[in-house]
């Protein structure tokens, strides 16, 4: 998993409440055999005027010019500013995969759906919950200033605004630690690799037949 320590990123809006995971990535894309490649289909129904199909090339599709994420000023954004209950609905891990694939590293919103939030941590995305008033202010500042950027310092748990002000935020220790070190579940288990190897040696001595190679 990618390490997340300090991010200096352009901010883009997803200015509606209760964005569900089906809106983030519609169900027809779940047939895919991949966990990458969902980026072009992030918010597919909003981003394009036609209906997206899995494995089809998105470059020639008609864009919805009114959808903010298609505006030139938000291209290259890595911080998504959103409204309450972001990521509700189905538990699909494809939602963080799609956000990640589209270049986002952090999402700021008043609140997140639980499973989506934990899926974010598993996939190197940082969800930051701020109070509604703070989020409103950020929306205003972002709309007023083209090229509005924020610096997110995860170690310090601070967001730095261009005017020099800082906003503190909170994350749970386990999730923060995983992101700071770039550890996923697998990475955490592999920190115990020696313990597993020791166990395995004893296990093999007791049950040698389990370790025979299957010659197919």
């Amino acid at each position, binding site marked *: 998993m990618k390490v997340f320590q300090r991010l200096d990123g352009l901010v883009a809006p997803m200015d509606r409440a209760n964005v569900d995971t089906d809106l983030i990535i519609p169900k027809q894309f779940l047939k895919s055999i991949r966990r990458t490649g969902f980026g072009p289909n992030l918010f597919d129904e909003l981003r394009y005027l036609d209906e997206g199909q899995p494995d089809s090339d998105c470059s020639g599709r008609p864009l919805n010019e009114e959808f903010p994420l298609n505006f030139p000023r938000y291209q290259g954004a890595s911080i998504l500013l959103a409204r309450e209950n972001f990521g509700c609905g189905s538990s699909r891990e494809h939602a963080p995969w799609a956000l990640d694939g589209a270049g986002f590293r952090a999402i700021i919103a008043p609140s997140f759906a639980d499973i989506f939030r934990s899926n974010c941590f598993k996939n190197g995305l940082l969800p930051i919950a701020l109070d509604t008033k703070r989020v409103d202010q950020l929306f205003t500042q972002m709309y007023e200033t083209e090229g509005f950027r924020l610096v997110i310092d995860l170690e310090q748990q601070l967001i730095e605004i261009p005017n020099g002000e800082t906003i503190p935020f909170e994350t749970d220790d386990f999730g923060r630690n995983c992101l700071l070190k770039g550890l996923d579940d*697998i990475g955490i288990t592999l920190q115990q690799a020696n313990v597993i190897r020791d166990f395995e040696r004893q296990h093999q001595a007791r049950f040698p*037949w389990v370790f025979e190679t299957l010659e197919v």
Partner: protein
Amino acid sequence: MGKTLYDKLWESHLVEARDDGTALIYIDRQLLHEVTSPQAFEGLRLAGRQPWRISANIAVPDHNVSTKANERAQGLAGVADQVSRIQLQTLDDNCAEYQIPEIPLNDIRQGIVHVMGPEQGATLPGMTIVCGDSHTSTHGAMAALAHGIGTSEVEHVMATGCLIQRKMKNLRVTVEGVLPAGVTGKDIALAIVGEIGTAGGTGSAIEFAGSAIRDLTMEGRMTLCNMAIEAGARAGLVAVDERTLQYVAQTPFAPRDSQWEQAEAYWRTLHSDADAVFDREVLLDAAKIQPQVTWGTSPEMVAAVSGRVPRLEDMATDTARQGLERALTYMGLEPGMSITDIRPDVIFIGSCTNSRIEDMRAAAAVLKGKRVAANITQALVVPGSGLVKQQAEAEGLDQVFKDAGMEWREPGCSMCLAMNADKLEPGQRCASTSNRNFEGRQGFGGRTHLVSPAMAAAAAVAGHFTDVRDVMEGGL
């Protein structure tokens, strides 16, 4: 205090217990198929990781494969649906890249992953076994701790050799006595799900015990453990006995010589101690179990073949009444009607629940010298593996099915979940030996009635559900 079989299996694989109640469990065997493995392999690749232990894994394609002989002969090129073909190709490519042993599509040993594993001895007593598939519980018939996992967990096991788990509760279902003739492991499974409900085993490992279970063949025990998940339990278990050892001894990957002796001595300890305490016990009288037929859209919506579909007034609560109404509307059935008045259009004999040689024999015994009724528009027999198919053909069972007017197909999951071309049409009604009767499971709008192979064969002959014993005793 004594230990349960589950406790023993858990303890012998416990790498580390953590403060938060989770534990790291060592995994002896991981089975892979084409549907739930691609993202796990891709995760490995993206992270630049290698499999922890290649020899832990074995792969086989099964869910998407065509069951038509002419399409199968063309290999992957014969798979018409592009998404399916890509999934199958991806499994081949991933196994080649990571040197994972794979039984390929047209190998005689290919079959449904839960049929292939025990048949090859790739899954053995005492092992921890995982697969990205909920019916992995099947392998518990050999006293292995086996359960289904999600794709992220498939990747975790592949990369670390371990799974993060919480210890489950111990539930024992004891079935004592002698089963009436014509009643099988499938009927026990359905009767248990009917008794404890689809959430009855949630959070538990179910050990099946009692004389009726010991009297079952290994195939029958696999059918039973297969459906532990339909009772909500991620794992089902049966203790090791002589039958287990005999079955394992003839499998290709079984240990040999001095290793066998060592293994056998250990395997003989794989039973619950006499003074073991279970969190919950359920007792069933084998003599009272009748052939079962599901009438609804959940496996717990089940009745004896002599019974009836419930009436709305039988339901205790409004929620239950609404559930019944919804199920009956979907199934196109009337409240209170006799099970024997239900007339299927399609017969499906197959799936990891009931596609082993014993199942083929049981169905053929009913069908021998008979014809499928005129109202049956399609009747599929899909053996669980190439070896089951070969054995059935050696015994002439394929001819019995063909003479009866049924189609004898190539091995795969087929109409169990309709990922390939074998599907029900909307509104079609199927007598199926599979394990799930959820809405749309066998095809959009399709209606599924779960039964044993013998009962499916009896329904095929009669054109409606009927007690297999009536057909066998010359009633038709």
